[in-house]
């Protein structure tokens, strides 16, 4: 899941740019957001939070961050928009095909030795990668004994994910990804086109649990053989990364696998040494102690 910033990459107004006052205002806003509704972005990577906030300031036609806080606290719709800013999602099916290929080669054989399989897709966004995993498991004959728990902080994206509907124009790209990821069937077997949209076939939805879960504040809710959390860490500061890695560590069985995004790493994190890398540079890790 990538969160992108719309067209909001504008520089903040010079008057309030980058000084201690701006920092204070941002802290107050995030604190207020947390106290008011429990969403905790206080440990998100500062520079991206700052960009997103300024983007929202301009769009809401307020002049200061404190002005935005005022509006957020009194206008539920505005609150929702700001939270959505922090959670705009971009994802695709079989994104980073090499990762899925490696998964098929290295992880699937191990999964065969478990009577049942639990996979947690944390930060699943609109579900493209979740369905990719479902297809992969189906092709490997493991889907029937698997449960995929797909979670995201945003309830809205989960609605989309659950529906399993994707834009038609994306499917060509996804098909190429699927083939590169080592797909063994026909990609077109897994969807049908309805009214200009693509619907994932229901048998692939059956073993997926979509639920809201906040990595920052919520806790472990099961024990998993695989956890995928791709392109989420990059938005967290180090403290939050450590905390979330602890959550994942505690939620993984011994020798369970953890998949991250291609720009993320466990190196330098305190629990990093409890994992070993599977396949050099592919950001697939295995809990080994």
């Amino acid at each position, binding site marked *: 899941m990538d969160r992108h910033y719309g067209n909001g990459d504008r520089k903040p107004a010079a008057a309030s740019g980058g000084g201690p006052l701006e920092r204070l205002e941002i802290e107050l806003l995030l604190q207020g957001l947390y106290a008011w509704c429990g969403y905790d972005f206080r440990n998100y990577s500062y520079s991206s939070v700052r960009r997103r906030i300024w983007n929202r300031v301009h769009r809401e036609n307020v002049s200061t961050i404190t002005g935005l806080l005022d509006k957020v606290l009194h206008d539920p719709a505005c609150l929702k928009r700001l939270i959505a800013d922090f959670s705009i999602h971009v994802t695709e099916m079989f994104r980073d095909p090499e990762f899925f290929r490696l998964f098929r080669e290295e992880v699937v054989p*191990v999964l*065969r030795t478990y009577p049942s399989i639990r996979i947690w897709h944390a930060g699943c966004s609109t579900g493209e990668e979740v369905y990719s995993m479902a297809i992969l498991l189906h092709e490997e004959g493991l889907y029937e*004994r698997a449960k995929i728990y797909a979670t995201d902080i945003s309830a809205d994206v989960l609605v989309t994910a659950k529906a399993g509907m994707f834009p038609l124009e994306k499917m060509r790209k996804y098909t190429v990804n699927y083939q590169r990821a080592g797909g063994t069937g026909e990609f077109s077997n897994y969807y049908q086109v309805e009214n200009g949209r693509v619907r994932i076939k229901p048998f692939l939805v059956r073993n997926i649990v979509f639920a809201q879960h906040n990595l920052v504040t919520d*806790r472990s809710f*099961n024990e998993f053989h695989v956890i995928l959390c791709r392109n989420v860490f990059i938005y967290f500061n180090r403290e939050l990364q450590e*905390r979330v890695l*602890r*959550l994942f560590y*505690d939620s993984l069985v011994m020798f369970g696998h953890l998949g991250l995004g291609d720009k993320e790493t466990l190196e330098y994190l305190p629990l990093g040494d409890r994992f070993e890398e599977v396949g050099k540079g592919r950001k697939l890790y295995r809990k080994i102690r």
Partner: protein
Amino acid sequence: MSHELRTPLNSMLILSRLLAANSEGNLTDKQVEFARTIHQSGSDLLALINDILDLAKIESGNMEVEPGPVVLAELAEFVERAFRPLAAEKRLDFEVTVREGAPETIVTDEIRVKQVLKNLLSNAFKFTHEGRVALEIDAGTLEDGRRAAVFRVIDTGIGIAKEHQEHIFEAFKQADGTTSRKYGGTGLGLSISREIAERLGGRIGVESEEGKGSTFTFVVGDYSGPAADDAFASALPGLPADPVPAVPSSAVSASAAPSSAALSFAALSPGATPPDAVSPDATPPADASLDAPSPGGPSPAVPSSGAVPGARPPGADERIKKLLIVDDDDRQRGSLMELIGGLDVVITAVSSGAEALELLKVDHYDCMVLDLGLGDTTGFELMEELKERGLLDRLRVFVYTGRELDSREEMRLRKSAHTIIIKDERAPERLLEELRAYLAEAAAGAETGAAAGAAAGTEAATGSEAGGADSGGAASRRGERGARADAAKEGAPGTDGSRTDADAPQLAGKSVLLIDDDVRNVFAISNILEMYGMQVIYAENGMEGLDILRSMEDGPHLVLMDIMMPVMDGYETIREIRANPRFRDLPIIALTAKAMKEDREKCLEAGASDYIAKPVDPDQLISLIQVWLCPDRENRR
């Protein structure tokens, strides 16, 4: 693994010797004496450990025989050199003779033959106070008629009473309890010697008369491979001859006669050995034969393999774990033993549930690799039988099966099985890894000892889940279901004596429907509630929970409801339950991993009576349940 054991022991030995030297002159005589005792006890312990490791290695089939030509005249010289000084010191006559007609060479493992001779001669010297000790090398034949060398170790020592002559070869069984205290040694030398003799295809016997002396006879011929094992195995009734050479003799004796097996196993794990098998003090009361002890083990005073600290190459060791393989397929059993043989465990393999049960009744095992399809029973039944008898408490079970399991079966197994492995290409690798992880964990656990136990208890009290960055104690790092469940038992109120079910008598007999797909939680919560005498009914998801509710005539007294579940989540399930007027007042407690206010509100909106955060704090849970089961409310129902 002896390394880990020897290192601390060695520092103990060195430091106690330094202390005893009293170089600064600031210790009292008494203190110096204490330091000496520490040093002596440490040395004895080291000798014992060495012998135990040796015996364990041989019994588990890990002794490798390295045959080569052995010149008997050279053996004679070796013995002469090694024991002449001791003979002089004890003022005993000592003679080594090679009889005419004795073979010049035999093909066998020279080091092992020497080890046996050293053991036998050390014993002879130890128990002989006057007269002579002799070694005669002679010609003889094996049972199958092949030529052999005969070594006779003759002494004029205290001798062995007839009724004890067989027992002296059994580990930790000396003629009477005073022997090892009086004569030193570990008492394992003869057991080791006999095992070695059998491995080499030979035998050891004894003739003795009390007060007159003993003659030990060691017959060994040209080594003809481990085939002797098979002959031995197939000669025993009711045991399928195993084609795999790796089958240790312990497996054989174990399946044929569990009770005697217990004795030989006793030698392998001092930590787990029942006192009556180990401690000399526990032997039956003294009688006339008391003063006629039989030979014990090698004495540290003589050059005897395994008895002298540092005499053996630094290996590895702490308490050796014992592993039981239960599989009815010969071939499978063999390949499992081959697979696991490289680990530092003592392996016993049996082919039926009955044998496994018999063994586990009389002896402690640390872990078990269990196939589900057995000739006489199923793995399920065996596990349940073991559980009923309380034999699973400290037994780590690794189910290794070719069967597919449905979720019910898996759940049933996971109640007691730590790990379930479905046979597939990567299954052997995983089994090995899981066993290794278990052994490492056990070793780490032994190190940290009681402290870790306590920590695990605390950790489990909070469900051992990701309690945020600030938690994450030992138990959670161990991350093992078994550890969690065990720890939950310890950590939960009731076992520490501070709270028992007497504190909340109103809970006893009440039933709780627990709907949760997180097995860690299911076991932790079931353990806690059962400790209070509550009955726990379990469902894996909301749909199943509803089915159970509908089928129950009396309904449960309370429902514990997880929120994030497959098929039908907690919110929906609660709404469904409330839709039925029968359950309007049924207390439903939501278990939620979520911290946000709106999540909690959602639980209440759906119709939950209350909520509690996962991981569940046992005290809080019990208090909460008491509130919601308060008679007042119940009367209204």
